[in-house]
C-alpha cells in the first residue's frame, strides 16, 4: 500500500508535461539503443528531386540546402522520401527510390565511428551503378543523376552513430 501511494505521488509531482517528454525521449532513443546493441547502424536516406523548374526549396532540406546549392546548378529541390534505416551488417536492404529506380544498400563494415556501405542503383532491376562508400559522423554522400521527369534524382545518405 505504501509503495503504491509513493508511486502515485511521484507521478503526480512529475506532471503531465514531464511525463510526455520522458515518453517521447524513450520512443526516440529506444530504436537507437536497440540498434546499437544489435550492431546495427542507423542510416538516413533522403530521396530528393532536383530540377530547374521553379525555384522552391523544400523546408525539410534546409540543413543540406547550402551543400546542394554549392554543388549543383539546380534551382528547385523537393524531398520525395525521408527514410531512417536500421541496417545490420551484410544484410542488403532494397528501397524503391522512384518508379523504376531502386537502390540496394548493404552495411559491409562497421567500426567505432565509421560505417562502410555497398550501394547499388538499379533501373528496372538492372544495375546502373555500384559503389562502396565510407561514412563517419557528419559526412554525407550524394548519389545523383538518374533522370526523373524534368530533373534528376539525388540520394543523400548519412549515418548516425
Amino acid at each position, binding site marked *: 500500500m505504501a509503495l503504491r501511494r509513493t508511486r502515485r505521488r511521484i507521478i503526480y509531482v512529475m506532471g503531465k508535461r514531464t511525463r510526455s517528454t520522458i515518453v517521447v525521449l524513450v520512443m526516440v532513443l529506444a530504436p537507437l539503443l536497440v540498434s546499437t546493441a544489435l550492431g546495427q547502424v542507423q542510416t538516413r536516406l533522403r530521396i530528393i528531386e532536383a530540377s*530547374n523548374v521553379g525555384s522552391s526549396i523544400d523546408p525539410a532540406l534546409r540543413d543540406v540546402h547550402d551543400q546542394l546549392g554549392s554543388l549543383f546548378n*539546380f534551382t528547385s529541390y523537393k524531398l520525395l522520401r525521408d527514410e531512417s534505416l536500421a541496417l545490420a551488417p551484410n544484410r542488403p536492404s532494397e528501397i524503391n527510390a522512384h518508379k523504376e529506380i531502386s537502390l540496394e544498400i548493404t552495411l559491409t563494415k562497421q567500426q567505432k565511428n565509421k560505417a562502410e556501405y555497398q550501394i547499388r542503383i538499379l533501373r528496372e532491376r538492372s544495375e546502373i551503378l555500384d559503389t562502396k562508400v*565510407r561514412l563517419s559522423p557528419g*559526412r554525407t554522400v550524394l548519389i545523383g543523376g*538518374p*533522370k526523373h521527369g524534368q530533373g534528376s534524382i539525388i540520394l543523400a545518405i548519412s549515418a548516425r552513430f
Partner: protein
Amino acid sequence: MKDSCSSISRLLEKHFDRETTVDEGILVQDHLRQCTPCQAQLKSMEELRTTLRTPVDETVQKETFAWVWQKIEREIQDRAKPSWQESIRAWFGLSFPFRRRVWIPAVAVALLIIAITSPLLFKETPSHTELSIVEYVESHTNNVMVFESEKENVAVIWLFEGPEGESST
C-alpha cells in the same frame, strides 16, 4: 779531526745520500777540501755502498723475473670475472651516491621525452584513402563522376544518363 768535523759529519751522510740543500752542500764541499779525515770517511762510505751494491746488481742482471710475471698472470686469470652490472659500474667509475645523483634526473628526463614524443609517434594519421568517402565506384552503362568536398564533408557521385545530364552539374 777538527771541532767542525763533528757538526759536518751529520751533514756528510746527507751529502752522501744527496739530500743536502744547496747551502749545506756548499758548506760540506768547502769543508771536504780542507779536511782529510772527512774525505776518508766519505770515501769509506762510497766503498761500503759499492761493496753492498755490486752483488745485488749482478744478481738482478742474472734474474729475468719470468716466474714473477707467471705468478701475476695466474693471479689475473684466477680472479673471478665481474658481473655486467659491476663492469658497467667500473666503466663509469661512479660511486653510489654520485650514480644516484646522475641517473635519477637522467631517467626522469628520458621518461619525460618518451611521454611527450610517444603520442606523436604512435598517432594514427589517416591515409588519403581513409579520409575519402568513396572507396570505389563502377558503372557498366553510364559515365560516372566523383567529387569529394573536404570543406563540405560531402561526396558526390553523379551518374550521367544522357548528354543533357552533363550540363546540369
